[in-house]
């Protein structure tokens, strides 16, 4: 396997807490890396370099979120050269590899920015507003036990598959970061669709969509103006059709008497 080494210049957003007056881009030039590395391993290399040269870098290592590093937990984020999760279609930051960059590239790394995602430090923001939206109704109200046999209700293969397409959302927030309105419509509609498509989730579909949309608004997310950037940057390629489906479900829910 060819191990190619390249040098890149990193322009990294540094911010020590939400009210840091000196927040801004800091340049780390000529970082030598291997093209087989993942993007986050490249940041590991940067942080090791910063830690080992602590006198030169009083700002300390760059804080960024990550965990599974296999594209499924949704912890990693980053706006890379202006795009959430970077240049590759359908790829999370942790699955992005440096073979897609060239020697001498300037790489801009910024956090996901949105009013509903308050800044914590450097590239880390608080995305717990997504949890609040789920808590408002992103579930089917069944308790443990007493459920019918798994095969009691047949689910057509295409319905299950469509629900699965929506359920593939990893809750990373790229849709919000990509949207000029910082809207959470793609995230919310993916959950509304996942549950609303399945026979098990239809019973409370109307009340679910009302509650979730209302919570989304309360959290300070913007409105949807059909830009479509969310779909383009979603690492799981969740379809914007879900938004259309949610709009329909939301409007029809206003004709029912549920709260």
């Amino acid at each position, binding site marked *: 396997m060819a191990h190619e080494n390249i040098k890149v210049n990193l322009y990294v957003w540094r911010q020590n807490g939400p009210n840091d007056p000196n927040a801004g881009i800091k340049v780390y030039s000529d970082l030598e890396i291997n093209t087989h590395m993942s993007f986050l391993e490249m940041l590991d290399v940067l942080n090791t370099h910063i830690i080992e040269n602590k006198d030169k870098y009083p700002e300390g290592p760059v804080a960024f979120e990550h*965990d599974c590093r296999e594209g499924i937990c949704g912890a990693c984020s980053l706006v890379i050269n202006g795009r959430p999760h970077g240049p590759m279609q359908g790829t999370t930051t942790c699955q992005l590899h440096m073979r897609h960059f060239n020697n001498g590239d300037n790489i801009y790394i910024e956090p996901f920015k949105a009013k509903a995602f308050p800044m914590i430090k450097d590239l880390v923001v608080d995305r717990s507003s997504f949890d609040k939206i789920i808590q408002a109704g992103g579930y089917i109200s069944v308790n443990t036990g007493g459920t019918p046999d798994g095969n009691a209700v047949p689910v057509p293969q295409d319905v299950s598959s469509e629900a699965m397409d929506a359920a593939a959302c990893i809750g990373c927030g790229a849709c919000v970061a990509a949207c000029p309105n910082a809207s959470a419509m793609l995230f919310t509609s993916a959950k509304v669709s996942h549950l609303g498509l399945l026979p098990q989730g239809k019973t409370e579909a109307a009340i679910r969509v009302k509650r979730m949309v209302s919570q989304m608004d309360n959290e300070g997310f913007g409105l949807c103006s059909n830009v479509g950037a969310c779909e383009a940057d979603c690492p799981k390629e969740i379809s914007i059709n879900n938004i259309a489906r949610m709009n329909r479900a939301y409007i029809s829910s206003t004709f029912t008497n549920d709260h």
Partner: protein
Amino acid sequence: MKKFQSNVPESETLEDKWTEYRSRMPLVAPNNKRNIEVIVVGTGLAGASAAATLGELGYQVKAFCFHDSPRRAHSIAAQGGINAAKNYQNDGDSVYRLFYDTVKGGDYRSREANVHRLAEVSRNIIDQCVAQGVPFAREYGGNLANRSFGGVQVSRTFYARGQTGQQLLIGAYSALSRQISLGNVVMYNRHEMLDLVVVEGKARGIIARNLLTGQLERYGAHAVVLATGGYGNVFYLSTNAMGSNVTAGWVSHKRGAYFANPCYCQIHPTCIPVSGDYQSKLTLMSESLRNDGRVWVPKHKKDVEALRAGKMKPTELSEEDRDYYLERIYPAFGNLVPRDVASRAAKYRCDDGYGVGSTGLAVYLDFAAAILRYGKSAATSQNLVNPSDEKIKELGRAVVEKKYGNLFEMYEKITGEDPYKTPMRIFPAVHYTMGGIWVDYNLETSIPGLFATGESNFSDHGANRLGASALMQGLADGYFVLPYTIGVFLSKEIRTPKISTDTPEFEEAQNNVQTKINKLLSINGTRSVESYHRELGVDIMWQYCGMARNAEGLKIGREKVRALREDFWKNVYVPHSDKDGHEFNPELEKALRVADFFELAELMMVDANDRKESCGGHFRDEYATAEGEAERNDKDYAYVSAWEYNGLDDDPILHKEKLEFKDIELKTRSYK
């Protein structure tokens, strides 16, 4: 200290044990439940399902996770599926068969009664998940689909594409979210448990660090449940998430909870090989791929050389020059032998110089035959007469894509190679830890009031876990076992008032943690935490306590762990701006976890040395058959090793729980 015994209830038959026990176990009335608090640490499958169910039952639950959201727990990364003895395929499956397969797969080192219970409740899990809206794969008729996994001869694995863990976790997370919105569960995100508080011999609370502010916080409860996952990251490189750690379990161990079978680690046979020393983690390729993928290495050394040098492509090698070694050695199970067997076989091929890839540490997993087979079948069903090879491959590719598409994509993203065209390169990697906190039949640890569930306990998988059984165990414990068995303890606590955190025990525990933090921050050495972790895992643990172990190596390994630990406490550098750690500081979080891995590592070496036999994932060079298969010693080692902490300088104390097999005859495992 409570008596060290398994507390398996008496019953006429094994089949009736759990049902009978449930019918007569003491209950807590709803009006009392409202006044009882339970702490659940960890919100993966085991923790989220337990917290949600306890909330539904009416307990006051406090749930903790170190992530920004419960949905990030590493259960989410499980790919292939979840087992259940539904027998939907009419292929001869039953509760007994799942029980038998699991005990045999675990190389007869698990507790019979626990495993049988697991097999029983496996059926309820599927029903529960379907009701929650988990979009499992379906047949055309709308029924649930199944596939096969290693170590079994039936199809009992339920799946949601290659994202089964994600979908099950989202199910549990949604149930948890519902309880949070109802006020039954209070969720503490970005909180990490750093000590257990024991009051008058019972677990009564935890010290958690608020990771945003860095402040230590005290939380009290009538009981504490650990659902904190496994400790595979002690090897640094593993398929675990970067944050997965042993700390909650380890601090509980130091407070009196026995640690069982720490040497039982699962090395998964199908992971993407290491590509360089910058590597931070390893990525698993689901075992489900072994349904259709064929594992091979070249038969001749000259071809190995050519392949390594890049002078030849694996697709150019003719059939007769390939060694499909799993099919050759294990004809009955072929490519679907259990993980420990498949991993060791790959190791032997590579040890003998047949490994491929630039490092020689890889074997091939090839889908060419499956693509042809599926392509021919599709051509037949489409009534195509004399289809071209190209057409067959195209049709076959579509079938394979439907089954494993996302896994193939992931492989291509990481390696830059297209597995539809060239075989995958795979190598074994640390994946799961069967060992964990010792628990009795009630999932209660040796500290009354402290429970352990899911991967964090030791109970169900013996010395080797079968594929698609981790999801099953996590959800079984959380939904259907712990919510009942915790009542046995809590029914005696209905007169206990709310636990005050303003007591000397909480004070002592908090000071203990603060001292440790101050110590770490005051060293101001020169080496990064990361570099110590890598040396511990890659250079010591994998080397001396990895896929094959021996007495001499374990002795050297233990000395090396100690020496490196001492160096860590003298030379580590943890960047910070607050000397008490009162700030958001991911480096400090990492340092605290690595500090505990050092101590665990030593215990693993001790345990591996004590177990003078080979079983499942624990393989000792000295105890192998002539063919290199594991040689168990049932006469002397049919026991669970439960270790009691005895200070850092002294050897831990071994307690043996004898394993009795009443329903299964102990045999040498054979997959031939």
